[in-house]
């Protein structure tokens, strides 16, 4: 589990952000004393720091610069100023990314994920195993024994999304949101078309009822 250190002086934001990030599968630590944030960052050695620029005692810019002298820990700067110049200043201080308040939580999550993946060089999983078949992410195909089935970008994303929540129902809204997060801007009708095609493809390959429809609730991958 990745550890994120939240440096934020606004108590409510700190608590809610911790809660939100722990729901999303991160271990959170949020110091409430700001007299030695730099030491705290260095000793607790988190995988990532979310740093607010507007802080008591030392301001965020100073902290960012000092931490950079001793550590390469990825830092995402959070601020309410949102011009390109502010962004540039933050980057010059050694921050890895920059996000403006009030942030869109989905975007925040995506930025955190991307940065963690980039810094810790996790080799993305190539193949997802679904018992009767494999999803090959690199080649965008389904492998059923020796048979290989080509998938479109949308179909691949739908399959991965269903795989990630395997065994539970995934609503159409969740599917659409997940597609949008991967920059595939589909609407409800397109999703229906994609689902139908995907189902037909699977059936033609002999995989019947891999994806079941729960009427009014969503889809389920077995």
């Amino acid at each position, binding site marked *: 589990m990745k550890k994120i250190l939240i440096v934020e002086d606004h108590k*409510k934001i700190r608590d809610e952000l911790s809660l939100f990030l722990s729901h999303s599968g991160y271990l959170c630590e949020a110091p409430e004393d700001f007299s030695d944030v730099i030491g705290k960052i260095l000793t607790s050695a988190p995988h990532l720091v979310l740093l607010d620029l507007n802080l008591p005692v030392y301001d965020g810019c100073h902290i960012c610069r000092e931490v950079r002298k001793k550590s390469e820990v990825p830092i995402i700067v959070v601020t309410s100023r949102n011009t*390109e110049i502010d962004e540039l200043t933050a980057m010059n201080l050694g921050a890895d990314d920059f996000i403006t308040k009030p942030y869109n939580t989905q975007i925040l999550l995506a930025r955190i994920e991307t940065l963690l993946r980039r810094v810790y060089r996790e080799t993305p999983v190539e193949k997802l195993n679904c018992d009767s078949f494999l999803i090959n992410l690199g080649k965008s195909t389904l492998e059923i024994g020796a048979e290989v089935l080509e998938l479109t970008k949308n179909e691949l994303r739908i399959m991965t999304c269903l795989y990630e929540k395997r065994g539970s129902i995934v609503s159409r809204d969740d599917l659409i949101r997940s597609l949008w*997060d991967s920059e595939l801007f589909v609407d409800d009708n397109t999703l229906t078309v994609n689902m139908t095609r995907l189902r037909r493809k699977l059936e033609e390959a002999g995989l019947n009822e891999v994806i079941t429809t729960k009427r009014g609730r969503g889809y389920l991958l077995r």
Partner: protein
Amino acid sequence: MNIREYVKDKWVYLLCHGGTMLFTVASLYVLFPQGGKQFAFLLGFLYLFAALIPLYAEYLKKKRYYQTLEKTLEQLDQKNLLTEVIPRPDFFDGKFMYDALKISNKFCLEEIKHHKGMQSDYREYIEMWMHEVKTPIASSKLIVQNNPGPATSSISEELDSIENYLEQALYYARSNTVENDYLIRELPLEQVVVAALKRDSALLIRSGISIATEGLALSVFSDSKWLEFILHQLIINSVKYAAEKSPRILITGRHAENACILSFSDNGIGIPEKELPKVFDKGFTGTNGRLRGKSTGMGLYICQKLCTKLGLGISVFSGPEGGTTMELVFPKSSMTAVL
């Protein structure tokens, strides 16, 4: 100032001296006829000469002074600084006017300074406030996120619209300042469009609008934040005035002569032809805005102001059968080629 005007101004003086001269000549001629005609006229002319010389000298002096004044006034940018630039005259009436003008100017300058100070105080406060209020919005959004439910998701929509109004206000303030807090650099058009779409994903998914993009593999020179804001306003408009059946947005990029054009079309209710020239006016809401409510008439106005500052063209098209197309024109100049 010319001689005729001056003479007109001094007519009492001239009349008196002319009259006195005539009277002198006449009385000399009558009372001392032995002195002869010539003597009387000579005395008369000498008198007139003595009377006119100082008048002419005064004319020359004033003419020089007022000419300088006129010229300075013409060249001066801030006309109220006139008394700071010209010298104090050395003739009585001029001195009087100069001193009065100086007091009046000083008063003016102080008044201007006072109002400028007040305005910038107010602006600083409002701008600070706008940044401060982002914190409670951010925490509210997180609370909503952590407590999913129908009530909070409705609050979330309202928070989004507060955020949008706030952003409009911020960019409005920015579009008025002389300071350049924008940064022009080369941007892949696709990246900006994708960022804008992702940012409004909740709104777009909720309204069920289908999105298509085409030919966005272009690069333009602009400020990504400002451009994203402009696109955000266009998206909001498209959603607000969307068609009821299968709403669509098509975003395309294309090359034109000396420019790249990003066009943003929807199949919404469109804009009546006679209102098209007015859509960028401040506070213009139009028939659709009034019918659907919620229009402040500020979004497109701010967009146009920002476009002017960024050196972009913005134009709107709409057909009688509905649908609106907004076009952003990114000029390709010799300068951008150097960059």
